[in-house]
């Protein structure tokens, strides 16, 4: 990017270019004064392309968002292919590199997160496809002499009069034409792919071992590094003895880096054996005083006082004084680890004035900038190769670029071409958790049992503190989302939501569905409790409170109908319901459970979602299944604890993940909706835990205020 370019306001303009090998390239970029951008693209592959049509008919869609399981590898290409009228079988996909033109259309940085990839790219990818189609059609008209109005496209061909010309044979010619800046998009009635669905484009390579994840990066001469990290959060190396590690066959080098001691070896096993042989004396620092127990105590104490105002209406003290009945509750939520299936890793090669990085990251641009800072290089000296992410859930999006920085430091300190690998234990103990939270609520009901006053105080660390997204007023909106903006408060005249932001040495981070992981639980179990106190059916009660929230109601009504809420379940089965909006989508779930040996067993979850237009309905369903099972794990098992500054959990035996035998039957229904498009990747997580907890209440008469549920032994109501 020249200075002149960056000085021009950032609007998305399309540009086209020819490929060296012949073909058409469609990019979005800033127009340069008096200069045909085509020339740029002929000299090299444009770094900011979105679509490449080869003379060989290959159609490559370049993704500004990364694939981590959510299916964007398929959804963005289908949006583009819809407008391009491409042959779906010829579609190839690749992740983009780092370029400003791939920045999120709303968030302004290159990020995959916030369940936003589909809605935020919907227009951009459609436009790219439509523009290419127009240019290909123009090329065909020119070549055949058939009037453009008489040319049509079909499945990768332009039909011009009696002639059928493939996109590939027209691509080079098309690339020389001026780019139309205003193209007509297809009306929904003509859609063949959008809203209908296609099969995942990454399914085959993910069933035969060919899909490449960061962990699978291998090159001749590349070494593997593992890092000994401080056992206490915030700890530092005081001194170390590497002689034992260096004696391990295969170990090549041991280097100190800011986050610990790295052992570099021919392969992972040698590096890991070397790490075991390290002798390190740590300076634990202040973190050694931290324990979950004292933390909970302190948070609980704070929760009795009003925090900084996150939302307020009327006068909550007066409201509570008027109430016919008062209810209070306190909730405790533990730290949680994302535990993506692929432990964190990153490969770095530094050579003279260049650096190349391979990793699975949700924040490639931020990570590249971090590498540049560490190496004292310019961003353009660094290449970022984003490979498939073996799960993200937010963990592969750290503003601090924690794992990429660590790998860059190792490569820099050792001068070696290294793949840094974290073990499951490193991943579990490495911080960046969903923060611990305590909520305290005082509500007042009127004589009819409806809430008229609600005081709600929340205590927990801020995930945005210290990042460029830190709020100015001290209220991290992600700590209170789902409560401060709760639809239930529409009908509560007097309410107050306050936030106390705690500071701890433990690094915290967004975690699939972020604040909604705890706020939905609190609101949905509390409202259930209110309904029960009022002697009303939980669905009917919610309907009254949600009168002004039609999308919540639509999801609630659909799930109640599909799960046959009004029908009695067989003996020993119980159900609970929850509805919540997150990331612009409205999800309601009914969980059906039984209690076996004092533990809940979830047999079935029925789910309804209103996400507006469901671009790839089966993909939406897959995300609902995924989110529900993620929510189930969180509800039943999710818990990290800290003693003397050390995380007590280390692997899947003490941080359990739901398995096949615990996986419920899941039925998903999509609300037929023309409302604003929301996301699908996270919104299924929030309602699952409260739906299960509400079912447990139906079964046992017990409300669960502390997660995970498995910490509470349960008994049937007898």
């Amino acid at each position, binding site marked *: 990017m020249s200075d002149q370019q960056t000085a021009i306001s950032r609007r998305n303009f399309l540009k086209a270019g020819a490929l060296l090998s012949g073909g058409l390239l469609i990019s979005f970029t800033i127009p340069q004064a008096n200069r045909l951008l085509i020339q740029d693209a002929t000299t090299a592959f444009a770094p900011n392309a979105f679509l490449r049509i080869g003379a060989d008919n290959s159609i490559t869609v370049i993704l500004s968002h990364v694939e981590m399981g959510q299916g964007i590898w398929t959804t963005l290409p289908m949006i583009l292919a819809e407008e391009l009228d491409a042959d779906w079988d010829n579609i190839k996909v690749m992740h983009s590199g780092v370029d400003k033109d791939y920045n999120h259309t709303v968030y302004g940085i290159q990020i995959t997160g916030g369940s936003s990839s589909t809605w935020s790219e919907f227009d951009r990818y459609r436009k790219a496809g439509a523009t290419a189609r127009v240019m290909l059609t123009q090329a065909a008209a020119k070549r055949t002499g058939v009037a453009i109005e008489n040319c049509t496209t079909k499945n990768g061909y332009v039909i011009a009069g009696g002639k059928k010309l493939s996109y590939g044979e027209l691509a080079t010619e098309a690339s020389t034409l001026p780019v139309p800046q205003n193209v007509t998009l297809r009306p929904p009635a003509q859609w063949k792919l959008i809203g209908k669905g296609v099969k995942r484009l990454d399914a085959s390579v993910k*069933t035969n*071992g060919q899909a*490449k994840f960061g962990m*699978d990066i291998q090159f001749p001469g590349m070494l593997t590094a593992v890092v000994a990290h401080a056992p206490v959060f915030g700890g530092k190396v005081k001194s170390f003895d590497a002689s034992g590690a260096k004696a391990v066959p295969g170990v090549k080098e041991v280097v100190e880096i800011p986050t610990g001691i790295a052992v570099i070896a*021919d392969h*992972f096993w040698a590096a890991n054996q070397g790490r075991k042989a390290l002798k390190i004396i740590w300076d634990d620092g202040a973190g050694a005083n931290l324990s979950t127990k004292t933390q909970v105590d302190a948070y609980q104490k704070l929760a009795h006082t009003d925090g900084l105002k996150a939302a307020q209406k009327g006068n909550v003290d007066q409201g509570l004084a008027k109430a016919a009945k008062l209810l209070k509750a306190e909730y405790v939520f533990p730290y949680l680890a994302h535990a993506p299936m692929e*432990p964190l890793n990153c490969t770095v090669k530094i050579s003279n004035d260049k650096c190349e990085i391979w990793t699975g990251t949700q924040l490639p641009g931020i990570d590249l900038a971090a590498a540049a800072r560490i190496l004292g290089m310019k961003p353009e000296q660094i290449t970022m190769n984003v490979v498939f992410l*073996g799960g993200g859930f937010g963990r592969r999006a750290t503003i601090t670029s924690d794992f990429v920085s660590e790998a860059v430091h190792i490569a820099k300190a050792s001068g070696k071409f290294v793949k840094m690998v974290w073990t499951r234990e490193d991943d579990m103990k490495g911080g960046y958790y969903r923060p611990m939270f305590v909520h305290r609520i005082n509500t007042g009901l009127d004589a009819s049992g409806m809430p008229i006053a609600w005081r709600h105080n929340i205590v927990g660390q801020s995930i945005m503190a210290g990042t460029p997204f830190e709020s100015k007023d001290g209220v991290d909106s992600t700590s209170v989302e789902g409560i401060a903006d709760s639809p239930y408060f529409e009908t509560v005249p007097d309410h107050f939501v306050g936030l106390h932001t705690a500071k701890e040495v433990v690094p915290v981070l967004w975690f699939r569905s972020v604040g909604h992981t705890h706020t939905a639980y609190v609101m949905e179990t509390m409202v259930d409790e209110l309904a029960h106190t009022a002697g009303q059916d939980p669905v009917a009660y919610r309907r009254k409170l949600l009168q002004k929230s039609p999308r919540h109601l639509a999801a609630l009504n659909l799930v109640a109908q599909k799960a046959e809420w009004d029908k009695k379940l067989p003996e020993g089965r119980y159900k609970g319901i929850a509805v919540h909006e997150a990331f612009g989508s409205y999800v309601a779930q009914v969980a059906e459970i039984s209690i076996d040996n004092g533990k809940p067993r979830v047999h079935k979850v029925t789910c309804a979602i209103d996400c507006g237009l469901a671009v790839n309905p089966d993909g939406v369903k897959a995300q609902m299944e*995924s989110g529900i099972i993620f929510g189930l794990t969180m509800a039943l098992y999710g818990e990290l604890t800290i003693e003397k500054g050390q995380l007590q959990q280390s*692997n899947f035996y003490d941080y359990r993940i739901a398995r096949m035998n615990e996986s419920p039957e899941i039925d998903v229904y999509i609300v037929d909706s023309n409302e604003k498009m929301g996301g699908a990747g996270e919104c299924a997580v929030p309602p699952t835990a409260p739906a299960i907890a509400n079912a447990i209440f139906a079964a046992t008469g017990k409300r669960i205020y502390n997660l995970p549920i498995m910490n509470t032994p349960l008994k049937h109501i007898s």
Partner: protein
Amino acid sequence: MIALKVNDKSYQVDASPDMPLLWVLRDLLGLTGTKFGCGVAQCGACTVHLNGEAIRSCVTKVSRAQGQNIVTIEGLSLNNDHPLQKAWVEFDVPQCGYCQSGQLMSAAVLLRENPNPTNQDIDDAMSGNICRCGTYPRIRQAIHKAAEMQKEGGKS
């Protein structure tokens, strides 16, 4: 030197006998389809076949595999046409995909030994394989489908 037979190919590897088979496959033989998820026999991502049995290669010393028949995901079929692979694609099972090699290798043993698995059989055979993306409902469907395909002679 340790002699290994992987996917019908013979290899000589220079590895210490206690090196786990997983790392021999991945780091010495470049067969990266077999994944590292936990290293302690908890997640099943590293599942391969040793003489036809599903084993966790992360806790299996390479010495135990010496001279034995090892099959990894790369050798499950020649053209990605094992009934399970076909069913996996048909039901769009994979999400992030990282666990799926292990899931397929576990399912392949189940299906060979039990051509008609019930849901309970699937629970029993597959509960050692974690999927953090929660693809279990589709894995279950796909195993049933593969069983059908196998009956109809779908194994090509």
